[in-house]
């Protein structure tokens, strides 16, 4: 893997470690309030400062990371899984089935995202009634965001496979007797994995933002739990007086985006058979 790839992997690992161990490192619980220290800037006691309720922002960014990364990576995985299977079948089988499957995608595509996310979250809240509140909300978010995101993945994968199907190396594989799922899984998909991985890394930041929108209208994570998107949008309201409230959650989003990009780019290079020497 390239140096950039290692750097990306390290950053992602660092973020995950921060998310998992944040409270323990800072020594504060993410929901422990201390209004005597409300809105204080960064200091030796509070490394990222404190919020309006005097809660340690470092612990909150760590806790928010748990939610944001879980929802973003989870929903991306759901979207990729559905999108790749759907797109691959549609593109590989082709013909009339392809036509019908793509019209279905068009129909789903025409629905406004936020509306569908709201509807699906409500439905999952109902379905998952027995699950404790926090996990129910997380699961509903992962599923709802994933079920909205698969459409563009399906289109991309289908296009890539249609293109690959006609290439000479596929002909060659077919000539030596490779057929069906084996052709798709062993020959075509690995060859088109580059753009798919890049899409996956791009979905993660947009899922972080989508989560904050859903939480804003009351269907996502509820206080005292938080997420990077929610922390950033709360901090935005006080940007001029207390810049630390938006700076650190914003940095967390920025760094995660950057790291996933580096990682994705490097994986793409590594996985692309054409670039293997």
């Amino acid at each position, binding site marked *: 893997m390239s140096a950039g790839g290692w750097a990306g992997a390290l950053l992602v690992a660092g973020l995950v470690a921060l998310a998992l161990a944040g409270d323990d490192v800072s020594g504060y619980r993410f929901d422990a309030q201390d*209004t005597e220290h*409300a809105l204080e800037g960064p200091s030796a006691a509070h490394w990222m400062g404190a919020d*309006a309720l005097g809660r340690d922002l470092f612990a909150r960014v760590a806790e928010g990371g748990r939610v944001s990364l879980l929802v973003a990576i989870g929903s991306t995985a759901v979207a990729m899984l559905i999108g790749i299977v759907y797109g691959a079948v549609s593109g590989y089988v082709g013909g009339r089935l392809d036509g019908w499957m793509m019209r279905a995608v068009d129909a789903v595509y025409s629905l406004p995202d936020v509306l569908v996310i709201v509807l699906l979250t409500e439905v999952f809240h109902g379905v998952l009634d027995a699950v404790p509140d926090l996990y129910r909300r997380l699961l509903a978010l992962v599923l709802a965001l994933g079920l909205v995101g698969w459409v563009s993945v399906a289109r991309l994968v289908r296009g890539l496979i249609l293109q690959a199907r006609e290439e000479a190396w596929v002909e060659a594989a077919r000539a030596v007797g490779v057929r069906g799922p084996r052709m798709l899984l062993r020959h075509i998909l690995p060859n088109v994995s580059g753009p798919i991985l890049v899409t996956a890394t791009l979905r993660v930041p947009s899922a972080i933002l989508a989560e904050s929108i859903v939480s804003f*209208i*009351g269907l996502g994570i509820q*206080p005292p739990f938080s997420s990077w998107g929610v922390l950033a949008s709360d901090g935005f309201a*006080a*940007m*001029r007086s207390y810049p630390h409230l938006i700076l650190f959650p914003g940095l967390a989003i920025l760094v995660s985006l950057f790291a996933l990009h580096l990682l994705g780019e490097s994986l793409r290079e590594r996985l692309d058979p054409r670039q293997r020497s």
Partner: protein
Amino acid sequence: MTRGRRGGLARARIRRIRVWAAVALLAAACRPLGGEPPPGELRINLGTEPPSLDWALATDGTSFLLLEQLMRGLTRMGPDLRPQPALAERWEVSDDGLVWTFHLRRDVVWSDGVPLEAEQFVRGWRRLLSPQTAAEYAYFLYPVKNARAFNAGEIDDPSAVGVRARDRHTLEVELEAPLVYFPSLTTFMVTFPGRLDLVERYGVDWTEPEHFETLGAFVLEEWRHEYKIVLRANPKYYGPPPSLERVTGYMVDMDSTALVLFEQGLIDIVRLPALEIRRFRGRPEYRTLPLLRGYYYGFNTKLPPFDDVRVRRALAHAIDRREFPKVLQGGELPSGSWLPPGMPHHNAAIGLPFDPERARALLAEAGVDASTLPPVRIVYNTDQTHKLVAESVQAQWRENLGLAVELENREWKVFLKELVSRPPPIYRLGWGADFPDPDNFMNLFTSSSANNHTGWSDARYDRLVAEASRELDPARRQVLYDRAQRILCEEEVPIIPFFVTSLNLAVAPRVHGFEPNAMDIYFLDSVSVR
């Protein structure tokens, strides 16, 4: 060759232009954009588009602010929040307290030159009360004889309503029962005189600038929907002419955006977002004062465990109200009594104090084990302030009682619907005074009030509040309200009053004569800009 050279020159020029553009942008970003503010013009932020300027239909603060400048009623709130003569130069009440006679000024004309007549009040009030108008605030006139029955469709004859024009300039109002604060009611926008000729001629468009006729200190000059409203001084105004030539109200829905415009010198008066207040403290632009606006949490008293009064009292005892001003930073006044400080008959001694031991004892007495209780749900409308309050309450109840609390936020309209259809176990609400009389607050939790979402009703409370609304003697009225408040805030506790909200404004130094008051009424006819 030539072409290539010219191309090179052009490129160099473009580069230079780019550099200058960057410099200009930087300079613009650093310097106020406003330049010289327009002389004689006050610029304020309305926050939102007023849903309607039809004063019979308006219910919201934005419409009220504008109509206070555009119109006048029989009476008008003075700076001391007592009703002053306005369109009525004087009034008297019959000995039995039932018949009020208002004598109108003779020199009042509307902006189209039509003179003011008592009949315009009669028609306006009938329109407000007519079931066809379906005005939400029709209940404001319910104290008037037969008004409630006419509004409910039980009486078809509008002339049965107790309002009559005795002659062109004398209005007679007959009430159902004596009401000490009736002249306070007639300051409110829904009681303004009506121009039904305009309503009939132009339909819903009668409030557009080209048709809208008013008789206040200002007239409507321009209404660019979802952008701004411009008021111009009314040359036909009967009172002293305002110093301002124009008032422009912008519709910037985010307070933080409006504040940026204020700091750029583009808006003269803005509401400060909660978290920006600390930065403005000590600056001459900063104005603050407590409003007649209470903030409370209500219980759905039909749902267990809140059907047990001991549980409700325990939760009230477990709240340390001093936390709220620390969290919100907006000069909130903690108050355990429902009548806010500044309201007549307020009594600071009323309310359940912070006492975690007592709270735990009450829970034990009720047989409730907080650790095994399913999480308690608080529902609030989406807003930074409400979220902070809810998070503080969540932490306090967990710490003081070991209670698990779940929070849920809703968009405002969804929230209001839910309050009516299936009230949440615990909800947050606020109440701002429509007129500065205790009845406006106490009436909220009577059995018949549409704003009582607690499911609680108490005949003693209803009786005390009704009796107090008729009581002329202030000392006896105090006794009645104290008794009612003790039932509401200490004995039955269908609500927990938290604090009184404060007004936090930034006012540009060029604005003179602007005095904020506890009802957040803007008296722009006495404001000037320099």
